[in-house]
């Protein structure tokens, strides 16, 4: 009887502690999705009867396909660059003795301060030959004018550079953290078997952190898909219209605020959200990244 009561109290206290979070979860994640979904199915100028017409409108819009192309190409450059550089540098950091690498790791964290609108600002100056610290290098390869760098062909590389430098250092330090926690006896055994530094790095360490690299790639993919601020700000200042409707989120924004087609904007947002949610479910159910978290759940539920 007493146990029963304390169990009930435990449930009530648990709910009370969880309540504030539940409120914001409902208010700022679930409600906006439901409302946006309803708007996406609602009547619009072109489809007064509502339904999936707004989705059709987006898919048939010529800007949609080109934005999909731009964002795909951006991800094709950005993701492998992240994977290779983060893997190589975190392995290098782990291979040399750790006490000397502290200043390096701190240096790698510095670019995280340069993100969002500051990233555009700084990288504009880094790439503009009249201001750039790299102007000498640019001149060597014949680039002396801003327009030689800032043009439609190069945009995708420029955005990839901005995104890469904002995130890579942070991830190097994170992956280095997971490398540091590989048990010494495993590496010791490998050394006894005659594995050299490269073999240890690529045959022992890399497979052990593989799932964290996969996790990183999936997260980077999900956020890369949403790229907005870089193309938007470049197009609204230095080179007006250069990257107009370049990314999917820009198109969504244009549809909502200048095309006054909120239904279509929400349809596009819903499609992008759906992709993100599928990505999330794949990580949770198809990789073993959150197994520990879920395993704990099971223990708790049984116990």
């Amino acid at each position, binding site marked *: 009887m007493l146990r029963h009561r304390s169990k009930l109290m435990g449930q009530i206290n648990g709910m009370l502690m969880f309540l504030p979070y539940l409120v914001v979860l409902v208010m700022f994640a679930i409600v906006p999705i439901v409302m946006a979904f309803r708007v996406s199915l609602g009547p619009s100028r072109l489809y007064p009867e509502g339904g999936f017409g707004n989705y059709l409108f987006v898919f048939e819009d010529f800007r949609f396909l080109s934005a999909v192309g731009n964002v795909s190409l951006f991800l094709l450059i950005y993701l492998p660059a992240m994977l290779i550089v983060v893997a190589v540098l975190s392995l290098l950091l782990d291979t040399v003795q750790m006490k000397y690498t502290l200043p390096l790791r701190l240096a790698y964290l510095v670019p995280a301060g340069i993100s969002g609108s500051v990233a555009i600002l*700084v990288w504009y100056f880094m790439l503009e030959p009249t201001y*750039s610290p790299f102007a000498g290098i640019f001149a060597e390869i014949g680039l002396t004018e801003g327009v030689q760098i800032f043009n439609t062909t190069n945009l995708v590389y420029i955005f990839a550079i901005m995104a890469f430098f904002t995130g890579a250092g942070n991830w190097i330090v994170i992956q280095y953290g997971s490398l540091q926690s590989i048990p010494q006896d495993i590496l010791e055994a490998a050394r006894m078997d005659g594995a050299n530094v490269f073999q240890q790095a690529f045959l022992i360490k890399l497979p052990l952190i593989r799932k964290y690299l996969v996790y990183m790639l999936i997260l980077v993919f999900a956020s890369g898909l949403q790229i907005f601020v870089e193309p938007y700000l470049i197009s609204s200042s230095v080179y007006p219209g250069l990257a107009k409707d370049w990314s999917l989120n820009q198109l969504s924004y244009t549809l909502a605020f200048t095309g006054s087609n909120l239904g279509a904007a929400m349809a596009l947002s819903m499609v992008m959200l759906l992709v993100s949610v599928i990505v999330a479910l794949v990580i949770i159910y198809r990789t073993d990244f959150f197994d520990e978290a879920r395993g704990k759940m099971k223990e708790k539920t049984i116990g």
Partner: protein
Amino acid sequence: MGKSLTARKRPQRVPLTKVKAVSGKAVAWFIMILFAVFSVIPMLWLILAPSKTQVELQRSAPLSFGSFQGYSDAWNNLMVFQDGRIVDWIINSIWYTGVQVLVACTIAILAGYALSATRLPLRKTMLIATLVAMIVPQVAFVLPLFVEISALGIYNTAWAIILPGTFYPFGVFLSYIYFSTTIPSELYEAAKIDGCGDWGTFFRVAVPLSGGLIGMLAFFSFQVNWINFFLPFVVVSSGDVLTLPVGLGILFSSTPALSPQVGANALPIRAPEIALAGMLVAIPILIVFLFSARLLVRGVLAGSVKG
């Protein structure tokens, strides 16, 4: 740590491989230092740029220092923009982010503790929902949030920016992992036997032991909210309600600094001034990063690989 260092020392080698190992190490250091240089140059440039005049910025060596006078000149010029609008943006950014960090972390710690140490009903569903919300980028919610914020009647107010920032699923997840792995469950049980209720255990046992967790939570929520561009950009239109990163975006498009088409004589805001505004956004993040370095250099995944 000391133990792992000695354990990692390599066994003696024959001279030839030693030569190879030394040159290999040199290459490794070269690559690591090169990457460090590329990491630091943009920030260095950003800090040095406002010390120079527009002409110096174009003529003198890119990483040279102008004068301290340069900073105050640049600031005075920035103040010309809409009668000191930049001050509004700074104040807004500080108090919005302050409220967000405080509320988001409190909510996240409570929820993480409830998930890990109380008998919360529907626990599994809540955890999965949190994981999904944590992986989906916040940017994906922005346009849907616009619809809700307009319907709530808080469009163009501080709350439209602040409230969504208090939703912090990553913080809930970090707290949940912390309370279920770092703090042994025996401690909670001992506290309960000693007569602490759920709240007593939370305040007297869990919170005092979570200094590291709280630092980590505050750090990540500060970083995300301070730099956030898309949400404030979409849900607020008045200059006096905006934040510093969006204000920087406005300086991009409405001053001659980056938009020569605006007209060079319209405003005294050129490259040094806009660099100063960018520096004001970047420096707080840099400071917080370096202060949290002790937590970060270990990496959030430290201790996660189990052979």
